[in-house]
């Protein structure tokens, strides 16, 4: 038999064609696959804000001077504080912070103006509700910033310059907007979710409907069966990537600094790896509901440990190791590198290789676990 004819006889082609036909017919799933990215993007993109601003602040101004009012204004100008009200004693501060109506309080002592004029170094106190570390760090840095700025202004009035000035330049995301950081990550998280569930359900659905039993008595090989099942979903994956990129650009002004083609190239092994995780899940479970549950169970460590929301550098080592076992961890680095830093794909060949390795390993594992029997 000639090679071409032999290739044409592969049962793989029949499987592939069948999956495309079924995918086209299943409009609801298809619509969900396109709609989910948009919803998720809006959800994560708008809701996740790691920068805390506009903390309600009460003021106890015992100085009641232009100088003390300037300091309060400097604090508000940082954008980290909103004036929630003036109070007249320390008990009121304790009450407001205790109730949560204020998250910070500034206390300016009576001698503030006096000390300032004497050049003795004036003091003011900022009380911060630090129960939430993320919120309080914004208050603390805001306070430090305001104090520093007032100092420079006062020195400047006297014709002096501060001895040391540190200039901070936030590269790649000068506005320090979380959306810029979060949106590229959503591509990876979303693919981890939908690809895993879609592939997990695809084989289990045939189990449930009784068609798998019919399939496995045909001469189709296990690899052909699995590849034929997942390849049509590659397309879905790439459409999702495109939807998020376009919406991310339009809604959140996420920059495309690098070559998008590189991104699509690296997305391929990642999508395959995610689909393979789904295939593996399908070899473990008997019903679609179980496949979905396991799929969502897989999603959780991906969100928490991959570096999507929390920096991996801050995690204890065992958590970092777990994160290193997730394909998403590597894909995120490439995503952010290409989109935000404009780094070329060649800088990420390690990540790419790891992802290719993951996909081959996971497919092989699923094929090994899948049996052409019904026991």
């Amino acid at each position, binding site marked *: 038999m000639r090679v071409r*004819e032999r290739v*044409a*006889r*592969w*049962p793989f*082609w*029949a*499987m592939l*064609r*069948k999956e495309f*036909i*079924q995918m086209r*017919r*299943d409009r609801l799933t298809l619509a969900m696959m396109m709609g989910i990215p948009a919803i998720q993007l809006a959800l994560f993109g708008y809701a996740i804000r790691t920068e805390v601003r506009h903390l309600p602040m009460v003021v106890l101004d015992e100085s009641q001077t232009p100088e003390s009012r300037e300091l309060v204004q400097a604090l508000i100008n940082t954008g980290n504080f909103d004036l929630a009200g003036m109070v007249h004693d320390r008990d009121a501060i304790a009450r407001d912070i205790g109730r949560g109506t204020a998250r910070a309080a500034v206390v300016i002592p009576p001698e503030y103006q006096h000390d300032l004029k004497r050049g003795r170094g004036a003091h003011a106190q900022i009380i911060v509700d630090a129960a939430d570390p993320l919120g309080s760090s914004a208050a603390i840095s805001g306070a430090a910033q305001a104090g520093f700025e007032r100092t420079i202004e006062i020195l400047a009035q006297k014709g002096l310059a501060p001895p040391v000035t540190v200039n901070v330049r936030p590269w790649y995301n000068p506005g320090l907007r979380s959306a810029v950081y979060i949106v590229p990550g959503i591509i990876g998280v979303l693919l981890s979710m939908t690809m895993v569930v879609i592939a997990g359900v695809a084989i289990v659905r045939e189990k449930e*409907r*009784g*068609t798998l*039993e*019919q*399939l*496995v*008595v*045909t*001469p*189709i*090989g296990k690899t052909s069966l699995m590849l034929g099942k997942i390849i049509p979903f590659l397309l879905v994956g790439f459409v999702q990537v495109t939807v998020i990129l376009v919406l991310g650009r339009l809604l959140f002004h996420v920059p495309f600094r690098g070559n998008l083609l590189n991104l699509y190239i690296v997305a391929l092994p990642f999508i395959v790896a995610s689909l393979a995780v789904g295939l593996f899940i399908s070899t473990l479970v008997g019903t679609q509901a179980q496949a979905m549950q396991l799929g969502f169970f897989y999603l959780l460590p991906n969100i928490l440990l991959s570096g999507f929301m929390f920096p991996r550098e801050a995690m204890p080592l065992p958590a970092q190791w777990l994160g290193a076992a997730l394909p998403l961890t590597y894909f995120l680095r490439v995503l952010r590198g290409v989109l935000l830093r404009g780094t070329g794909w060649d800088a990420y060949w390690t990540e790419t290789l790891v992802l290719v390795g993951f996909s081959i390993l996971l497919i092989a594992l699923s094929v090994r676990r899948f049996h*052409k*029997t*019904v*026991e």
Partner: protein
Amino acid sequence: MSSAPTNGPAILTRGLSKSFGPLVAVDHLDLEVTRGEVFGLLGPNGSGKTTTIRMLTGLMEPTSGTAEVVGIDIVKTPEQVRKRIGYMSQRFGLYDDMTVLENLDFYAGLYGVVGAERRKRIAEQLAEYRLEGRTKQMAGTLSGGWKQRLALACATSHRPDLVFLDEPTAGVDPLSRRRFWELIGQRANSGMTVLVTTHYMDEAELCNRLAFLSRGKLIGVGTPKEITQRFGVARVEDVFIELQRRDEASAPTTEMARP
């Protein structure tokens, strides 16, 4: 395509057994099915009919014993066997969201039937199974009788030497059943061996030979005529009831008590 022998029995099993834990589903089955015959496998629910078919199609591995299907060892080389057999399960294995034509096309493709050959074969199947008018209909919207026909057409599009039909006519009206058996007869006339399980004794009468299974054991084999004569009864149904009654009388009362 394959070098397996084309004469000799279509199915030959020796001591074929399958246990699920303490339950013996099939117990030392010695079965021989001749090529070209319609062979009926009879027995009450749970007697091991489906398990036997599943072992013979490679869907289950036997606990012990050997089985040759179309002259090839099904346990050692199931893929060699699969090219040459067809299988229609109780659940038909059709894709409800695909049309009649797409289902046929898919199964033909799985068996490596391609190109002009496939077009010709599908046209033949459509004509033989009277499915021409329904090519664009979704399989899910077909009635039971039509589903059954389509399932048989799908299971035989690669012209297998042997086709397994597991309760193909369960839950189908009498006219559809009769038509289906006409189709089975035509397959057999063209040289295809058919192994069929059924609960309908009128269908059993149409088989060339019958085997009775009870609680995993083979308790009688022969042509319908031989069998009825041997038992001195008029119909296969009486034999069936008699054999089962005897077997149950001689057996311990509970299932789990058996080794």
